[in-house]
């Protein structure tokens, strides 16, 4: 019985660490939704491109890992801005659902482009960091590092939004799209900036994920849906709600996967999500209905 409890504890701790990375992914998506009112269905595909960037720079071109990370973050940030400029902007005025679907087209495009360019092989960095051993509990350092970085990045975004002039402008335009332009804010530029930040967060997420997972063209499909669920459960656009929901989800997957198969962990997380939607459609942690 005692052994059982240790493994369960390990699953819970791993869930906490996994939650940190999920929270980071959800943050980028949530920020974009909160400010621009658009759901990037292709968000996880941007993460996938970031993972490929790190992989190729590090293993093929021998670039130091830190530089490869920086390049990936900048590249995906640029892609985020490009996505907004080329794809989202033309449909900003049309029906909301079109904005969601147009990024679905980008999803197909990026996934196919990655397959054409890189093939369907599973690739990994070939790094293996040791595990932190506490008693009988094994926690991979890559996960601890990822969760810690994710927390720091989230704190950074939080401070940026709260303490800086630009951050305040972004929060203001999220609150009222009509009035803010009259106050002299340029929504086009703020949207572009937000998209770049959202992309940058996807790039950072890519750096943390590539330490733990193989990259392949369809990896977005395994992270994408879960990220959307987290954002919706936290209340789309609600950054704190998304943060908490990420940990709830991660526990479902980790502990559920501990008791059953990993797929059942995901199934339970999704069932929980659907159940929550029926009890609180505005999101589990929404302070007020949107």
């Amino acid at each position, binding site marked *: 019985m005692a052994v059982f409890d240790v493994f369960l504890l390990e699953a819970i701790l791993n869930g906490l660490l996994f939650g940190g990375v999920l929270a980071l992914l959800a943050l980028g998506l949530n920020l974009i*939704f909160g400010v621009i009112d658009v*759901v990037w*269905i292709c968000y996880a595909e941007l993460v996938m491109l970031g993972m490929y960037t790190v992989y190729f720079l590090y293993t093929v071109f021998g670039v130091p890992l830190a530089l490869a990370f920086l390049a990936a973050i900048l590249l995906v940030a640029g892609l985020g801005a490009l996505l907004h400029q080329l*794809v989202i902007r*033309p*449909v900003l005025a*049309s029906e*909301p*659902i*079109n904005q*969601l*679907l*147009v990024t*679905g*087209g*980008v*999803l*197909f*495009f*990026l*996934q*196919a*482009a990655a*397959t*054409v360019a890189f*093939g*369907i092989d599973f690739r990994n960095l070939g790094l293996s960091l040791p595990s932190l051993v506490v008693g009988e509990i094994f926690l991979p350092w890559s996960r601890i590092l990822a969760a810690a970085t994710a927390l720091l990045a989230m704190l950074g975004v939080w401070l940026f939004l709260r303490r800086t002039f630009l951050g305040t402008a972004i929060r203001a335009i999220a609150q009222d799209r009509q009035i803010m332009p009259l106050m002299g804010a340029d929504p086009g530029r703020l949207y572009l900036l937000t998209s770049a930040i959202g992309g940058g967060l996807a790039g950072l997420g890519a750096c943390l994920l590539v330490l733990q997972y193989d990259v392949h*063209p369809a990896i977005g*499909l395994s992270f*994408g*849906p879960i990220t*959307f*669920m987290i954002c*919706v459960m936290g209340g*789309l656009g609600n950054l704190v709600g998304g943060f908490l929901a990420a940990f709830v989800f991660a526990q479902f997957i980790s502990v559920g996967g501990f008791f*059953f*198969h990993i*797929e*059942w962990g*995901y*199934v339970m997380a*999704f*069932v929980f*999500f*659907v159940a929550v*939607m*029926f009890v609180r*459609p505005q999101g589990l942690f929404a302070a007020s209905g949107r």
Partner: protein
Amino acid sequence: MDLLIPLLIAIVVGLLPVLAPIGDYHLHLVILMLIWGFVYTAWSVMGRFGLVSLGHGAFMGIGAYGVTLLWNELGLSPWLGAPIALAAAALFALLIGWPCFRFRITGHYFALVTLAATEIVRLVIVALRDLTGGSLGLTPKTALAEGPVALAALQFAAKEVWLYIALLVWLSGVLVWRAVDRSMLRYALEAAGQDEDAAASIGVDVTRAKLAVTLLSAVLTAVGGVLYAQYQLYVAPETVSGISISLQIVFAVIAGGMFVQLGPTVGAVFTLALTEALRVAIGHTIPSLDGLIYGLLLVLFIVYMPKGILGQALALASRRPRRAPAPARA
């Protein structure tokens, strides 16, 4: 018109094997176009009212796997298995739909809840790998060993038989679309799509209207799943369920035209023809090139031609003659 044209198409396609023997490969393409055209039409029955579901892979998966599992495990004929699978799809639609509509989950939220639904079905199929074969897929036990026609098992060796089955199912799908188009339900849903409160205030039971059209759409989609499984004699979680297939459904409908009767069918013809043309032109040397072009086209469609191919064509055609006859008044 909306009765005549589908019937004409059905007659022409039905006469194909008799008048112009086109070979198994082309016959196969036509059958796939009909099956997918039917599934896309089933989606647009609700999609056209702003109920954009990203979860129709769930219904297709339940139909396809339901009928195959009942046949393989219990030896239940698809003639009995299909109604059970359809009932299961309807129940699932009810389970997702009722709370969604009751609590007014619309727009982005509805799309994402249905997305979760389709992922649940895909993951359950993968997780039950002892029963379903997991990601490797599942093959219905063959009944074609004794002869080319196994009526009880709903398996036929001849493609011609499938052409007529698919044609019949497609035609009934298009006619269901027409029936909804002419019903009071349509007006109720269009009103609710504009403003739920206003619609409710003039006596529209919004929840019930949405639920009715969702159940109809789900059951039709499950029929498509059954048909697909019986025709292909192979189902895999990725090809009948999950996010990719759900997105594929939505995009083909948008490409063809969401708001016109034959738009989804045009979408099916267009996407399949595109895929095949690229495959023939380039071969397998560059995998996924079709997906690349497909994705790009879809973005362009939504940005520049949101009405879709057929919708845009009909809009252009109807604009011209209307201008021609000048109002003659005495």
